[in-house]
């Protein structure tokens, strides 16, 4: 399975006596767009944190491009994370935020990358404004610029549409579509199945910390909602 960007082998995660994930086995190929669905508390965000190398599994292992992201900086450098939290600093300007992350990732042409990233998300004119004055949509656009600044080959998305209006959702969708065509492996956790249906080519459903459904996906938004409904407890 040389083409697998992400390999999870028997990964479990416990928080004291609470078991968040139980023996997860999952392989995600390069360029796949995986929709990770499940009810609240199913373990989706915990799984993303394991993939991002922020958290380590209690047992089993997670490999990113064949390496443990906890131990290998190269593995972490290939991952981007876009969450409903912006992971940015409110008292820095847009430009300062991106420049800071460019420094952390040791990007060779930092100033140019920051400029390009700001242009891609349409925030060039607001580059010197502090984030405290930004709207939710502007913050999320900047968060996307931060997540993709180092051109990751794997993008993890944790409820990226939360708090965005329809226009901002469409813009984010468009950007994700571009990343998908650029062969970026994406794992998205969202409850907004309507938006996700157009992007996903694989559906994985988590329930009580286990994978309870896994199939290749190419259906319509309604079909996706119908498929997920029994696992999410939503009415058909």
């Amino acid at each position, binding site marked *: 399975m040389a083409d697998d960007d992400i390999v999870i082998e028997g990964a479990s995660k416990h*928080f004291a006596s609470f078991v968040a994930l139980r023996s997860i086995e999952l392989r995600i190929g390069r360029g796949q767009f995986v929709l990770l669905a499940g009810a609240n508390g199913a373990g989706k965000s915990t799984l993303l*944190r394991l993939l*991002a*190398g*922020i*958290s*380590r599994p209690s047992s089993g292992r997670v490999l990113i491009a064949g390496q443990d992201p906890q131990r290998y*900086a*190269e593995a*972490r*450098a290939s*991952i981007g*994370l876009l*969450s409903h*939290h*912006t*992971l*940015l*600093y*409110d*008292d*820095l300007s847009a430009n*300062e935020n991106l420049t*800071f*992350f460019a*420094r*952390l*990732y*040791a990007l060779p042409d930092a100033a140019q990358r920051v400029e390009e990233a700001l242009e891609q998300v349409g925030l060039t004119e607001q580059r010197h404004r*502090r984030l405290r004055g930004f709207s939710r949509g502007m913050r999320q656009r900047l968060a996307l610029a*931060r997540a993709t600044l180092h051109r990751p080959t794997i993008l993890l998305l944790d409820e990226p549409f939360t708090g965005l209006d329809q226009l901002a959702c469409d813009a984010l969708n468009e950007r994700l579509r571009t990343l998908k065509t650029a062969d970026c492996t994406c794992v998205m956790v969202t409850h907004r199945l309507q938006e996700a249906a157009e992007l996903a080519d694989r559906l994985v459903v988590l329930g009580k910390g286990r994978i309870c459904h896994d199939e290749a996906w190419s259906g319509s938004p309604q079909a996706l909602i119908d498929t997920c409904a029994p696992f999410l407890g939503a009415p058909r």
Partner: protein
Amino acid sequence: MSFWQRTLAILRKDLIAEWRTKERLSPMAFFSLLVLLVFNFSFELGGAALHEIGPGVLWSAFVFASLLGLSRSFADERENHSLDALLMAPGDRGAIYLGKMLGNLVSLLFIEVICLPFFALFFNLSPGFFLLPLLGVFVLGSACLSAAGTLFAAMSSTMRLRELLLPLLLLPMILPALISCVEATGLVLSNRFDANLFSHLKMLAVYAIVFVSLSLMLFEYAVEE
């Protein structure tokens, strides 16, 4: 990118944010000056009292002011979960600790430099070059406070009772360093630069080095949920 460049990037980011908001410096300065002022009126200090309780008053003000600053040192990272982004960045995670620790050290030194003239004024201390070694005591003592404090601030930053936990964890741990700080400050104020003073300074240096080394190894486990 080297470990030091990442450390400096984090330090720079923290200093810029602090300079703009003064979220930590304002309460720290206010609290320290208030402690000095209250003790000044309570004990009518000056003369012999300066040497007897002056060092204790000074370091009590610094320790409690540092607790105010340390409890806020991970607030920025908590607000938008930015710590996750720092942990995801490539490279040794010890750089996050060291950047934060240096930020706390700079804040504490800034407060100490502000407090010193007021301490001299309230406690009838004649200024002179003999006070220069006091800066050495301040640097080493603050390094000890910041080294231990940053690790415990990181550990308690994700906990619900973090404001309560930080002093409970930190104060017993810094007691040996605090005793040396008070003793060394007393010796400098008495103009006694003997072997006793240097043994206290050595103790502070060793404490800071040991705690920084330990924290560099333990930091990534401390911030894990």
